[in-house]
């Protein structure tokens, strides 16, 4: 077994172990939340009889350890259980929500990743001149503003004043792709603005690092254009840190969009999670937590694997 393969297998095994530990953490974490699910479902207007009846039916009286192993067994066989609040199958409800979240994340990534890398390359090309400063200045200010504020600002000016895009990003099965894209224009814009700076700065820094190397000077002396040098010689050697930061941001696009989804009323996982947290619907919160953790761990694992594989020393051992 080559060192690269061994490292990859090690990474994946570590990822699985991490996921298992996270599952324990999620399960215990949700148990110590204050409040009572029956009370949260029935609201302030619940009678004690109704509360007792509901608690019995929900089975919240069993010991926690039994419930954890039942839950873990279910998860491993693809059964996430049923929601306490409406009795629906969680896997089924999450399916369409996850699809929506991935749809939003996908289009945000399609725009943000190439744009960030291109801006990073441009910033290196015009290093310390006004395009570099402009790009850094704008992206740094958009990452510094909280995303819900960017959301509200865009909503007011682009949605209400100009009327270019809907302020409520409702998508449903009856819409075609064009309508859906129009509907999610604002949240995609917000997400793009939020993740742009991180990836752009990392691209810029990684390439600048490589630009000090002697082979760049050689390429320069060969007479290649500046942009060609960056794109063909410097960029491939800085892929590893760039992929890392891209994956981190992709993970953010899936698991960190809770606020953006709520602001734009987008029917994704984030809003689903928020709805159920406020109702103390533990199985749903646990399932969402686990899925978010899995996405995060997987994407980071991919980043690790790519950096291992992009390292020639590891790919071609002596």
């Amino acid at each position: 077994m080559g060192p690269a393969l061994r490292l990859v297998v090690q990474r994946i095994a570590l990822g699985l172990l991490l996921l298992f530990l996270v599952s324990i953490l999620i399960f215990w974490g949700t148990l110590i939340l204050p409040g009572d699910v029956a009370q949260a479902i029935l609201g302030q207007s619940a009678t004690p009889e109704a509360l007792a009846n509901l608690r019995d039916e929900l089975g919240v009286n069993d010991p926690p350890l039994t419930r954890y192993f039942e839950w873990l067994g279910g998860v491993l066989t693809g059964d996430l259980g049923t929601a306490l609040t409406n009795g629906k199958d969680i896997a089924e409800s999450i399916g369409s929500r996850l699809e929506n979240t991935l749809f939003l994340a996908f289009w945000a990534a399609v725009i943000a990743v190439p744009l960030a890398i291109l801006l990073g390359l441009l910033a290196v090309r015009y290093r310390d001149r006004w395009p570099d400063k402009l790009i850094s200045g704008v992206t740094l200010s958009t990452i510094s503003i909280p995303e819900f504020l960017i959301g509200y600002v865009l909503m007011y000016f682009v949605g209400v004043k100009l009327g270019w895009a809907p302020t409520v990003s409702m998508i449903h099965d009856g819409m075609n792709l064009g309508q859906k894209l129009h509907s999610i224009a604002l949240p995609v814009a917000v997400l793009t603005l939020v993740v742009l700076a991180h990836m752009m700065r990392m691209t810029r820094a990684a390439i600048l690092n490589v630009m000090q190397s002697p082979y760049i000077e050689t390429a320069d002396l060969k007479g290649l254009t500046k942009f060609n040098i960056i794109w063909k010689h410097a960029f491939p050697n800085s892929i590893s840190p760039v992929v890392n930061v891209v994956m981190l941001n992709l993970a953010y696009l899936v698991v960190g969009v809770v606020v953006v989804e709520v602001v734009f009323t987008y029917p994704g996982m984030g809003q689903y999670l928020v709805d159920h947290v406020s109702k103390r619907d533990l199985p749903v919160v646990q399932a969402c937590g686990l899925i978010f953790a899995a996405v995060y761990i997987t994407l980071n694992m991919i980043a690790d694997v790519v950096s291992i594989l992009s390292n020639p020393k590891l790919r071609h051992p002596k």
Partner: protein
Amino acid sequence: MKDQLDYLKVNAALGRISRREFFGRAAALGVTAVAANTMLAGAVRAAGPQKGGTIKVGIQGGGSGDSLDPALAANATMSQIVRMWGEPLVELADDGGLNGKVAESYSSSPDAKVWTFNIRPDITFSNGKTVTADDVLATIERHSGEDTKSGALGLLRGIKSMSAPDASTFVLELDAPNADLPYLMSDYHLMIQPNGGKDDPTACIGSGPYTLASADMGVRLVFEKNPNHWDSAIGHASTVELIIINDDTARVAALQSGQVHMVNRVPPRTAGLVGRAPNITIRSKSGPGHYVFIAHVDTAPFDNQDVMMALKYAMNREEMVEKILSGYGTVGNDTPINASYPLYTELEQRAYDPDKAAFHWKKSGQTDPVLLRTSDNAFPGAPDAAALFQQTCEAAGIPVEIKREPNDGYWSEVWNVQPFCTSYWGGRPTQDQMFTTAYLSTADWNDTRFKNEQFDQLLLAARAELDEAKRTQMYADMGSMVRDEGGLICPMFNDFIDGMSDEVAGFREGTPGFELMNFYAPIEMWVTA
């Protein structure tokens, strides 16, 4: 010119020319935009409801965990949903009385113990089945059974027996007289379902003006007109779309950008600003809902009457209405009852008086600070209201300490558990229900621990009293008792604030019940376009 204008008005109202065109042409005739708008509104009303179109409602309150079972309805969105497809026996009328829905009429025995409801003949559920007294019986049974989870269970205690002697008669016998029983039947949980919904409570089959076309809970629900509904005077739009938008700013933005025609719960702070837009009208109405500071009068130091009086006099009610509700509300008077109740008598208004507050505080001999618990969950702006109260108390020499509690678990850990906290009540349709729910000695939610034998006796006597003048007097006496001896400090009654676009018409002022014309706005209003 008048003839020309009249011609234009009729055409605009009927949708033959667009609003924009009407304004343009009216301007050409020398009419100002404001006058033109007023003219058009008058013409629209005169032209009567228009059929067809889609009404979109941006509504707050729903979540993806919501159930379609009317028994579990507990928020604004679920209350709106059940109104679309279902109907209760009776419904609150604009004049404070009741309108027949599934029941055509009702009557009681002279002692108000046996109530008979006559079911409207020949009305059908949306599945085609005829509505019979057996369905009504099964519905009430499901909501009052031992193992029910229904939110209406509290209302339906004290039923001795029920029967359906024939297909169009439903008879309820009570343990004790209750003159308000028909009002209880207007509760939004009690939608009549085939076989009471015992087979499938979430099927959304009822006798209402709309039928459910698609449901994505907490996201979007679509309703289509029920062509067989018995009352052609309601249900004008052919489609009604409910879009759940819980974020306040997003909901208002959706109204402003024309994505929805109406929204509920416009935040009071921004309502004035939103209403300035030319195509949006803010509709506020007073209701029975109130924001409260509640103390357990059986727990020290609140068991000392002077402490309670000191706190009551230290409350600046006008300032609360102005600052917490931005003027969208009315001052409270330390009773849960206001003019929105049918048998209301105005009591002498208690006013902010730091001198009297200081006098009572000194007399009580208390020196320790009073601990007030609060959270955003209690009511919007509750922590600010608590801070205002702390200041007015300080002016009277009463030290108040504020403890900010987490939103999570506020209703199970703080409210009705801790001796002094902020909270809210949505109110009830009748005095009897409000007092029974929260001020009767034995009530589960007696959140002020108000225990007064005389009050309890009066409550039972009033319930059995069919003479309205006597009942009114009894409720006034009870109101005074709560006001002077209770643990309730009620600074304000909050208005329901809706936002409506001018693309829909037919709004009626002064409807009883909840927001959005007691949730009948999407059903009884129409698209003008």
